[in-house]
């Protein structure tokens, strides 16, 4: 079990203090609201798809540091990427957070997002890290609302012990 302290690394604290792409997005083509009823976290993700590319993306909401930093790094990572690449990252991030892939041994495209790998040892916090990604997925599929508890959530299916 890795040191859970590693979760609160400087990069995460920095993104929490100064979240990137934070705010509203005028005339978004896609958006979704996400919330975690267990802890009251909620955030919205809005983006503009130009062709198949995410031309711009923004998020805002109220959440813990893990959720906010995850959202901030997510937006920075998927901006400019294709929808397919974003979906790949969503899947890989989810697999990392739920311990289904070991980012040190298996191939992935997560880059610095691996700072969130430690969350797999904190089952109650997995949802905090995943919520922005759920919401992005919902936005890309134009699902109006997503929730870590909702059965309508397209990614509700197995998310580990969280």
């Amino acid at each position: 079990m890795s040191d859970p302290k590693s979760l609160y690394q400087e990069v995460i604290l920095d993104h929490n203090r100064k979240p990137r792409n934070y705010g509203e997005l005028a005339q978004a083509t896609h958006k979704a609201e996400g919330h975690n009823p267990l802890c009251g976290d909620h955030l919205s993700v809005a983006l503009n798809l130009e062709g198949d590319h995410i031309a711009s993306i923004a998020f805002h909401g109220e959440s813990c540091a893990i959720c906010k930093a995850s959202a901030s790094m997510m937006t920075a990572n998927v901006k400019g990427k294709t929808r397919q690449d974003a979906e790949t990252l969503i899947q890989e991030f989810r697999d990392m957070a739920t311990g289904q892939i070991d980012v040190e041994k298996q191939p992935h495209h997560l880059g610095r997002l691996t700072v969130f790998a430690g969350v797999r040892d904190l089952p109650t916090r997995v949802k905090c890290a995943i919520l922005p990604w759920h919401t992005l997925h919902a936005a890309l599929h134009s699902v109006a609302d997503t929730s870590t508890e909702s059965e309508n959530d397209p990614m509700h299916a197995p998310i580990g012990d969280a």
Partner: protein
Amino acid sequence: MSASLSALKPRSVPALDVERIRADFPILKLRPGGKPLVYLDNAASSQMPQQVIDRLVRYQTTQHANIHRAVHTLSEIATAEYEEARRKLARFINAREEREVIFTSGTTEAINLVMHGHGRKFICAGDEIILTTLEHHSNIVPWQMLAEEKGARIRVVPINDAGELLDGEYEKLFSERTRLVGVTHVSNALGTVNPVKQMIAYARARGVPVLVDGAQAAPHLKVDVQDLDCDFYAFSGHKLCGPTGIGVLYGKAALLERMQPFKGGGDMILSVTFEKTIYNVIPQKFEAGTPPIAAAIGLGAAVDYLSAIGMDAIAAHEHKLLDYATAQLARMPGVRIIGTAGAKAAVLSFALEGVHPHDVGTLLNQDGVAVRTGHHCAQPVMQRFKVPATSRASFAFYNTMAEVDALVAGIRNVQKVFS
């Protein structure tokens, strides 16, 4: 509206020998992550002393059989022990009669029992139920379900900025349609001790029965249901150093007898034909099926343990812890104490400026300090204070001043990480 402090500040009682008490609790020897466990989540669930663990083992290894059924010796022993546990619980809350103590799975089931057994029988369209802002969801949701089913109405006593029920507002909510008052004795989210005795007197003078949610009160102060004169009093075993899956609904015998059963099944009947079933007398009428026998006996041992220490001494020690912790946190910049009622018990809810409670909880956990973070199943309280959640330290008689210091050091560390 503030509760009488005399109920909380007991007469001079001998100080607890906390180190000796701690030796009774094997789990307190744990060192999660190499650091001593500082368990400050007692409002969620308390820990179990060896005496209760031993009692469970003795029951399971030498006394177990089903109760109220067979004529064989083991069944007779198990039945006697189970009923002895009921006697202990009746004494613990000073019930008039043992049959006024109904074993339930916990406070939630006890409240649901009152809702189904009393509420569904006696509350009709247009009737009103008075609750308070301080209620736990388990004393809100059952009444909403009933209100929806019957077309009844829920009225809510508001609170002030300290987390106390607003003076005079409770009385104003009464009307000729008031049929029940549901009030928590001690707020689980804020620690506020409500002036339940006065509230009960006011309601009873108008013929309105009162259900007291005692989940947070029973572990921390001496409960006397005859002195309170409440109609129903509900509490849980696992917050009282007992096992999970067991709790108590106290009800006045006359009321319980008029109520309809909540669950149907074995043990709650006198005779069954397909034409007609005759229900058993109380308390069996409300204990359908095989109850959690071991858990009930374990809870009996738990209240023996607490009574031997003395609820007055327990309350006095916890007050010292609360006062000390409150003074420490009040001095810390960036810390906001949520819930500053004049009368409080063993709960300290707080918010750190700029830090979400979940991050507080995770970081404190790394220092071995276990607190609860979240809305504490009391979302109306969170909405009143305009916070999504709080961090909550809740004390038991086995906690020490040094553990309060560990909490304070842990909070400083959280602030450093987020500075």
